[in-house]
């Protein structure tokens, strides 16, 4: 556990010390700000964050893999993985800390959206319960996306490949499953279940849905498990 804390600290500070963090923060604020103006902050519309979060969920398919791409790929490319894997640290701890590092950074990026919430609260009547559940949904969504990103980064030493692979996987989980479930009526139930959007909609609309909770938690765990197995298998080559 102490290892996880030390490694997570290191991961998080690596984000905060790099210019990427501030670039990402800037892009993120710009993006959420624009989405907020054009989808949510419209006179006469229901005062809720739902449209903003739905739009953000789609945008993150592109954003999160860029944040996660360096996590393990960079360690492979620079060789620091050798010092890491010969320290008394378990592979699972490495993967878990990488995940926690990027997820905490994601939470920091998410924090400024509270400004938008405040604006809605000032100009409309905000349902705080719905908002809280919607934020929980965002945190769970971020966890799943980050886990997919960690897995993609564990697979290759090339950051660009990791990013593209991550975007591909996320696109498959969001857009592809949605599209295919309409193409193949027979597989509809399975594909609709796998679709992130469908699960996330409940949260963003303020329904606390345990099915969706299980979906996000188990999905995150599944990809982290895959990542740790991939990391372990790297030793054998």
């Amino acid at each position, binding site marked *: 556990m102490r290892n996880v804390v030390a490694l997570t*600290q*290191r991961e998080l500070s*690596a984000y905060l010390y790099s210019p990427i963090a501030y670039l990402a923060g800037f892009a993120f604020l710009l993006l959420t700000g624009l989405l907020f103006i054009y989808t949510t902050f419209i006179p006469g519309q229901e005062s809720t964050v739902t449209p903003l979060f739905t739009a953000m969920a789609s945008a993150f398919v592109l954003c999160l893999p860029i944040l996660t791409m360096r996590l393990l790929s960079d360690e492979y490319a*620079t*060789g620091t993985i050798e010092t890491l*894997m*010969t320290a*008394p640290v378990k592979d699972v701890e490495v993967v878990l800390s990488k995940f926690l590092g990027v997820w905490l950074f994601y939470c920091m990026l998410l924090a400024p959206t509270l400004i938008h919430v405040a604006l809605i609260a000032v100009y409309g009547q905000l349902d705080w319960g719905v908002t809280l559940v919607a934020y929980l949904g965002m945190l769970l969504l971020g966890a799943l996306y980050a886990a997919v990103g960690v897995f993609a980064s564990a697979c290759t030493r090339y950051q660009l490949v990791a990013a593209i692979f991550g975007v591909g996987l996320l696109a498959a989980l969001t857009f592809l499953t949605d599209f295919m479930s309409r193409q193949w009526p027979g597989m509809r139930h399975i594909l609709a279940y796998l679709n992130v959007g469908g699960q996330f909609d409940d949260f963003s609309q303020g329904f606390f849905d345990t099915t969706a909770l299980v979906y996000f938690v188990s999905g995150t765990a599944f990809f982290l498990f895959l990542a740790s197995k991939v990391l372990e298998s790297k*030793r054998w080559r």
Partner: protein
Amino acid sequence: MIRVHNLTKHYGPRKAVDSISFHIEEGEIVGFLGPNGAGKTTTLRILTCYMPATSGSASVAGHDVFSESLAVRRVIGYLPENVPLYTDMRAREYLQFRGKLHGLGKAERDAAIKRVADLCWMGDFIDRPIRQLSKGMRQRVGLADALLHDPKVLILDEPTIGLDPTQIRETRHLIKELAKRHTVLLSSHILPEVEATCQRTIIIAGGRIVASGSPDQLKERIRGGSRLIAEIHGPTPDVTRSVEGVTGVKSVAHTSNNGWVRLTIDTQKERDPREEIVKMAVQRGWPLREIRLEVGSLEEFFVQITAQQQMRAKGQAEFAGLASGEAAA
């Protein structure tokens, strides 16, 4: 302290390490010597639990590297070949981070960092970002990291590569100092390096151990067929014939210059006919201005032995190629 038994590692069809076995006792300082690509780094990586062996076994401080990997990693301090470091951190931050991974508390960490910073002369750059450090400084950060948790066993892969001559001398001195408290296994492809620092040398080539022993023992092995150099003044044919007649002389090669005959004499095994040659020259009344035994240097031995190994490997490859060719036909 380190026990290796029939260790083999394949990379695909290529055998990087081919059933090697050796033991290293506590407090020993052992050099792992071999040309590039001999399997040194692979062996060290197996010992440090970075990668598992294909077959065979290895243990460090009584812990098996495969089944008790974490225990092994706790007792080892490892300096990898290219000294990979997180360049976005400052040297001190990096050591703090590594100390945490080794389970050192705050006070212990601070004390340990002070100790290793002194040992590795890091005083003037410990608070600089690693990105800005030179190769030699990085090497010292890596070494400091390896020493941080006061490990029983130090495994150093090419510890002086990329350092300038002064730093090389200082590092060698440091390694010798360290050997008083730690068991050290270091690898190198530079022979004087190993000769200068290690009590024992294991020479590896083509994934196999080709020789091992103290530098003196290794020299002993080549003394068997050593050579004499002599310079005698006299008529060339007479001189060579007479020297060839001395017992213990196997063959003689000569060059002559102004009446001086320079002889390169191969002796029979375990024979030293210097005395007889001097007596013979005096009897004949030929002036003799030089006679000496040329003991093969460790360097020569190394080149000879690794060349043999490569020839053998090449022969095998050709044979295998031939065999598969025949099979195809």
